[in-house]
């Protein structure tokens, strides 16, 4: 059987990588943000997590922001605002 050589149809990635910062060792006194992706029950999940974070970890404040819908990125001004106000941000993804 003769052999055939073919080109790969798979695309090439050209993106740079980012260093992801570590999470803080202690959440006490910190401000936690949520990006609500609008999917059903995310608001309730964030409510429940917020209560637990306040009770168990003594977080100082919780900031909530909502995207327009699940399939678009949060607007840059929202991200900038959260980056300024929060120490850790939990972003909803999927459903």
């Amino acid at each position: 059987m003769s052999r055939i050589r073919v080109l790969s149809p798979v695309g090439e990635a050209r993106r740079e990588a980012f260093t992801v910062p570590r999470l803080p060792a202690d959440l006490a006194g910190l401000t936690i943000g949520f990006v609500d992706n609008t999917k059903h029950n995310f608001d309730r999940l964030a409510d429940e997590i917020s209560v637990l974070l306040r009770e168990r970890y003594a977080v100082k404040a919780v900031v909530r922001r909502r995207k327009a819908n699940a399939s678009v990125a949060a607007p840059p001004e929202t991200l900038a605002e959260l980056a300024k106000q929060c120490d850790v941000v939990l972003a909803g993804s999927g459903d």
Partner: protein
Amino acid sequence: MSELAALGIAGLPLLVVQHPLGGERPESVARKAREAVEQLAGLIGGATTGESGRVGAPRTSLRPPSEQADPADLATMDDDPQAVLAAFCERGWCDGLPVVPPTEGRVRAMLGGAPPERSLGAVPPLWRQATLEKLAVNAVLAGCEPAAFPVIAAAVQAMLEPAFNLYGVQATTHPVAPLLIVHGPVAERLGIHAGSGCFGPGFRANATIGRALRLILMNVGGAWPGRHDMATQGSPAKFSYCVAERVDASPWGPLCGDDAVTVFGGEAPHNVNDHVSTGAAGILATLADTAVSLGSNVGWFLAQSQLLVVLGPEHAATIAGDGFTRADVQRYVFEHARLPLRTLKLGGMWGMQDWPVWMTAVRDDDALLPQVPSPDDVFVIVAGGPGKHSSVVPNCTFSRAVRRPVLPL
């Protein structure tokens, strides 16, 4: 995880909430919240803060290309149709149907002198580059003729326009597929079928051009069923979805007479069967009823809701015979493809809707609410053969139709 890697943030901490979350009762959501917080406790143990004492902005660093996990650009396999299919399936490089082996010679012929390294942009969700060479490889795989390549490139450019939101189209659980409508003389030159059974099998140009786009979305974009393409059930339209306008049978001329493509993020066609109406009112009433339903995405995210109406030639002639213009059809569908508030409250996405303020203020349960924002969000084309059928293609509501000219590469 590979999507995070593609974004260059492979180390981003994740809290995994087991599916489903939507539709769960409060006690289930509370349990998932407790589980998420337990995961968070594990993640923060022993971690350190950034230099400023807060979690700082990411610092960029370039990883060696070898960590980007690009596949080998060449593969060798037995020169036998079944062996080639098996090899492509094994690598996850095709849709499961037989392929034409993309040899260098065939890819060069597909490019037709276009610069192979030119990229049209990064294709989500894995954000890999749509170089003309990669598009050509997939076009060969799909069985395309080289003359179709400029149409494929134009379609990719259209899908990469921000308004189309290809990331959403690729990653959603909705069964959306980009419908490619080819306009102008190029459609006839390429043999893109617009007559009987135009959404079905039997025509190489429709089948292979549509398939090439799907293979590009899978192989370049990286959207595989259950892995980045999270469609719950998907759709047969995801194999291939390409059609042309039946210009000769349209009472109103084509939607676009120039060489161009429109990409429309749509569901599979919904049949509009009306064998009895002898006037526009009856056919359009049937069509408007088909266009909206509680289970459709259309209407819930109003700003991006669009409908494509594909009139069969006989229906189109009857409607035009009553003096309707294309704009009249658009207006009629806009005014009549509506649901009462009481129906919308029954399920669907009630509670998650993104409506303008005037709609959210409505309290009358009998009020008929629009499902698209304007008549301009109803597109009307004519396609198909003899018979009393038309179709409606609802969009996915997070993507707007985009048109691009077909130009030499």
